[in-house]
């Protein structure tokens, strides 16, 4: 397969098409819009469904409807639009239909700006809507990885009947990188047994998230939680870079993880044994893998483009065994490699000091 130069948003769109998406519903918002525009051209060419909705509320409920019909349905947006989709996401989670969503995060809160951000971490992993549920959240760091994760997203969504979110940021959505795209997979022909297709020759299928009886709804929740536990056990993804001998660890995801790689090399050049732990699945968070590293490192730096969100997960996992420092840039400011490297240097100096080395 040829390597070609693709813009992140368009690569995600083409990857979704090659993964066999049947229907795309969306609403324009920067820095995600090229994904929608690409779909507007390509989906009709292939005889598939594209529709620009009246709002993100409309879009997510169209996804809900199409997903109920057993289609591979998706939408994409950026932070303010994801806020509007929360209601629909909660209903989709409650009624256990599969769908895929892309969030190309931007600076917030409010209208914020259109620069890259990572401040939707809590929203995506913890509070994608009311009630107890977590989408499966995958955070690519390169355009190639965005393509690779998009390629498996529908299978994950259908396997677990769950929401899969690809969480990128404005930098990933806008940058161009060489990628290898997967081969084209045809849209689904067969419909899952639970799908709404008409009652032809069988009892009605009903898709609902309403259970008025408390015991019944608790049973539904227990079943949902059991499913989430299965996802949590089976779907953790992460990458380690130079962690084998690392004394100091940077934990970062997405775009920031790329910057952190440079910082790790800078620190190593200065004699500090640094490594990078990069969660790829934000939910489920790859806790056991980080836990193992936390048991033997001398310090952890968490770098994010937000005011400190993933760092809460990291602190819970490190449990005081090593100091955890947080470096956060907000408002669309991207941290520089040197900022992260100097956090590592600082940590190493404090550690050396504590061990009596005053050199």
């Amino acid at each position: 397969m040829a390597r070609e130069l693709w813009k992140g948003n368009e690569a995600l769109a083409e990857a979704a098409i090659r993964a066999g998406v049947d229907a795309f519903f969306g609403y324009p918002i920067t820095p995600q819009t090229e994904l929608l525009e690409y779909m507007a051209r390509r989906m009709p060419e292939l005889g598939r469904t594209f529709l620009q909705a009246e709002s993100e509320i409309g879009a997510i409920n169209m996804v809900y409807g199409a997903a109920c019909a057993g289609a591979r349905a998706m939408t994409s947006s950026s932070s303010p639009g994801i806020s509007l989709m929360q209601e629909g996401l909660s209903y989709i989670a409650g009624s256990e239909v599969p769908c895929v969503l892309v969030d190309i995060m931007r600076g917030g809160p409010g209208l914020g700006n259109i620069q890259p951000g990572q401040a939707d971490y809590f929203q995506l992993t913890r509070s994608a809507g009311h009630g107890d549920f977590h989408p499966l959240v995958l955070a690519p760091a390169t355009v190639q990885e965005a393509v690779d994760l998009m390629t498996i997203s529908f299978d994950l969504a259908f396997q677990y009947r769950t929401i899969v979110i690809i969480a990128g940021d404005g930098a990933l959505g806008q940058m161009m990188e060489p990628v290898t795209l997967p081969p084209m997979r045809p849209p689904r022909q067969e419909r899952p047994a639970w799908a709404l297709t008409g009652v032809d020759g069988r009892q009605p299928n009903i898709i609902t998230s309403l259970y008025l009886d408390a015991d019944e709804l608790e049973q539904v929740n227990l079943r949902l939680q059991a499913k989430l536990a299965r996802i949590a056990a089976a779907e953790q993804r992460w990458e380690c870079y130079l962690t084998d001998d690392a004394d100091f660890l940077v934990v970062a995801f997405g775009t920031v993880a790329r910057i952190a790689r440079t910082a790790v090399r800078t620190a190593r050049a200065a004699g500090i044994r640094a490594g990078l732990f990069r969660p790829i699945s934000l939910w489920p968070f790859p806790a056991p893998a980080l836990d193992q590293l936390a048991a033997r490192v001398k310090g952890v730096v968490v770098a994010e483009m937000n005011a400190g969100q993933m760092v809460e997960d990291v602190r819970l996992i490190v449990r005081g065994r090593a100091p955890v420092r947080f470096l956060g840039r907000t408002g669309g400011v991207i941290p520089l490699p040197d900022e992260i490297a100097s956090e590592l240097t600082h940590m190493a100096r404090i550690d050396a000091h504590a061990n009596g080395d005053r050199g």
Partner: protein
Amino acid sequence: MTTMVMEREAPTLTATPWELVYQRPAALTDLPTHYCPGCSHGAIHRMVAEVIDELGIRERTIGVAPVGCAVFAYKYFNLDSCEAAHGRAPAMATGLKRVRPDRIVFTYQGDGDLASIGGNEILHAALRGEQITVIFVNNAVYGMTGGQMAPTTIAGMKTTSSPMGRDVLTQGYPIHIPELLAPMPGVAYAVRRSMHAVAEMRKVKKAIRMAFQAQLQGVGFSIVEILGACPTNWHVSPTDALDYIRDRMLPEYPVGDFKVDARLRD
């Protein structure tokens, strides 16, 4: 329609055995509804089901239930169906219909659901000319939550959230949905009917049939607004509720055809 011949001898002068001429439509389940005495939802469900049977489309029809008193419509219709978020049924129906254009998709919505929280969804489904059918029951209140003011509440009408009567200067004016949607080119059928008398109910059923017919013919979006009774929240008897529709609601909401596409055949 299938007819069943009963074994029993008819206690009449004729020797003809009894013939069952009135029975549950195949598109309804045998579950007793939870609706209050005098509520119009049950009768409207039945009419929708009869039309689905008569058109022979039960096997390929998908229903979208609202949030409101008809939230359990999916239990009463013997169809594939789903339950939308409050007001979002037209968007959900859009998603269903766009990926299954060979299926018949309808929403069943109350006035709070459709005309208030779901105003944007219904407006744009109609603007796009979605090939869906909307059964819109206007009982002038939010029934399920206990009779609060709806956008359809008529001027001066007392509800739990307009206890002095709806003051249009501060609480706004009633909304006329089919009149609003009818001028849109994507709309094939937009009418209002009423449940206040038997003769009117026959017209309700006929309109429901036309609305489904519009979808079968693929001529555009179809909506039937039906003035329905809510004796419980209007605090009147079921029979007085029918008079209330005739005397209070009809002057504000005249029955009529606001759009009937010329291509529509009965």
